[in-house]
């Protein structure tokens, strides 16, 4: 009952102030703009592009691939039948040819018979994704082949030495940016509401009522986390919408690559560190004497987190221990998801731990509220 009144007050404060609402929604819009622009710049394929593709064996699917590719304005494909697969491979590896598609004998007929047939039909897609246009072609060919029928074996071979650098940068930086944007929206509401109220003496007025300290702490963190989640959701939407531009492919291919489960995980991870960040800023605010002091400390936390998330992004083979580190665990898990190698246990453990950490912080805030040295010390 008292908790409800406290929470309602925070919500009222927020939703009647257009300035606060805008500050919550802006980050997502910014992410969307930055990423769409950056994505287009970094992965821009030449407007006109000609693909020459070797084909070994026969299948009608080639026509579908051609049609799909040529839907993109300026893109043309020629298919060249070859018997010397090894020579073709060498050309693909050096980038002279776009790709090689190998079909097993009687591919289309066998697909009709499988899986009853004794020989399972097979197809192989060979390419080198270091060229972003070729990478885009491969994505399309892969998707079309995937849709052609389930009952054959598809092997893909990518000659790229490193993963596409641009894509890796994106996946590395994106979670970092989400953290930064979410952090700043949490910061804008929490500092004002906790450190601000303490500085202005309105928190003390609440402390002389018979509301329990635990309720007061929770009555701050819960609504502020909800409100910050709006900011997080906005950042998330920004990311989700700019994903296709980022990957340099059309929207259906992007959604095909990053599945529903991946999106769900991304959202859960963001959902888990929002209350944690709010609770952390609220704790620091409770300790500080003024908004200025609190924002000083909070900036230090933010910089620390930024540096660590960047490190997590670009240090290979970071240990499993990262899952125990608040917020960073989510950053690392999100990077996994975005690079297409999601580790489910890592996501779930990170989620649970972050919520637990937030609870511990709320408990600490309640303790601080009862400490006269912290609340009324000079």
């Amino acid at each position, binding site marked *: 009952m008292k908790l409800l009144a406290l929470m309602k007050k925070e919500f*009222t*404060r927020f939703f009647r102030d257009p300035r606060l609402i805008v500050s919550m929604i802006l980050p997502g819009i910014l992410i969307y703009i930055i990423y769409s622009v950056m994505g287009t710049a970094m992965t821009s394929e030449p407007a006109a592009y000609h693909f020459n593709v070797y084909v070994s064996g026969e299948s009608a699917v080639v026509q579908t691939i051609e049609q799909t590719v040529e839907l993109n304005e300026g893109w043309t494909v020629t298919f060249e039948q070859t018997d010397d697969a090894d020579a073709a491979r060498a050309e693909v590896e050096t980038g002279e040819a776009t790709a090689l598609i190998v079909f097993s004998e009687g591919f289309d007929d066998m697909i009709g018979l499988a899986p009853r047939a004794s020989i399972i039909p097979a197809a192989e897609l060979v390419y080198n994704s270091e060229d972003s246009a070729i990478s885009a072609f491969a994505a399309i060919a892969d998707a079309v082949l995937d849709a052609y029928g389930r009952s054959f074996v598809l092997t893909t071979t990518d000659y790229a030495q490193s993963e596409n650098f641009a894509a890796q940068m994106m996946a590395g930086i994106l979670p970092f940016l989400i953290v930064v944007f979410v952090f700043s929206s949490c910061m804008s509401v929490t500092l004002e509401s906790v450190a601000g109220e303490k500085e202005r003496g309105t928190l003390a007025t609440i402390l*002389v009522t018979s509301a329990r300290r635990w309720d007061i702490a929770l009555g701050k963190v819960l609504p502020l986390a909800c409100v910050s989640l709006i900011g997080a959701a906005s950042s998330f939407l920004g990311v989700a919408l700019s994903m296709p531009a980022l990957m340099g492919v059309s929207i259906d291919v992007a959604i095909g690559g990053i599945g529903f489960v991946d999106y769900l995980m991304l959202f859960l991870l963001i959902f888990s560190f929002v209350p944690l960040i709010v609770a952390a800023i609220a704790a620091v605010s409770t300790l500080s004497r003024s908004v200025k002091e609190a924002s000083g400390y909070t900036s230090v936390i933010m910089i620390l987190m930024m540096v660590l998330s960047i490190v997590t992004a670009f240090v290979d083979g970071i240990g499993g221990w990262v899952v125990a580190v608040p917020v960073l665990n989510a950053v690392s898990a999100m990077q996994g998801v975005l690079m297409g190698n999601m580790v489910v246990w890592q996501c779930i453990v990170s989620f649970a731990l972050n919520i637990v950490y937030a609870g511990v912080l709320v408990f600490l805030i309640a303790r601080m509220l009862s400490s*006269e040295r912290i*609340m009324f010390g*000079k």
Partner: protein
Amino acid sequence: MEKIMAPFADFGEEVVRAENLRKTFTLSRKQQRLDKTGQTHKIAVAGLSFSAYRGEIYGLLGPNGAGKTTTLRILSTLIRPDAGDAFVCGHSVSREAQKVRDQIGFMTSELKLEGFFTPAYLFDFFGALHGVEKETLAKRRKELFERFGIDRFAEVRIKDLSTGMLQKVSLVISIVHDPAVVIFDEPTNGLDVLTAKVVTDFLLELKAMGKSILLSTHIFSLVEKLCDRVGIIIDGRMAADGTLESVCAGSTLEDKFFEIYHAVKGETI
């Protein structure tokens, strides 16, 4: 409503009892420099005892730094005594802080209201925090707002109110839960004559409503005008305590105060 009690003799129920209260503050470096002392500790309240009675106004009178605010903060459970204890309506401030908070309304300039909200909203908010029933709350709000002329300003944001109206609103909100005891630190400090009158009238009104009031001040006339009882506090100790008549013993409060002050400090000003 309760009857107004005769403000003279030692009768009536004891609503506040302080027993040998002590409070020492650790001084930070900065404070030490400001105070120009090498001492690391400051004894703000040094074994203070007194009682205040139902339906009366009790005034804590003392010079700057005497320990008035500290005493009132202990009584309102904002800070804890190092030693001794105090009881408000029979509840210990150190062991039953929650119950004490339900019995008191605390007014001081350090407690502020959020400028963003309206008096009506905050009245309901603090009512809910004190666990007042919805219907009771609505009735009380109507009554109190009418009585103190706040009704016309009920929906004006706190930050747009005049100082006098803001004072009234703060006062009314501090008694939203119908507390038995009202504690008030420096009620007229920093107010112009008009606003100060708003406050003193309010206190007399509260007394008429049967509330017990405990206030602190360094203004003699305020004590003479309002208080039934007075405690003169010097250096954290009670130098004199009793009904206004018994403390003054025929002379004016001011003369009596300096007499006591010299006796305690052994110096002239």
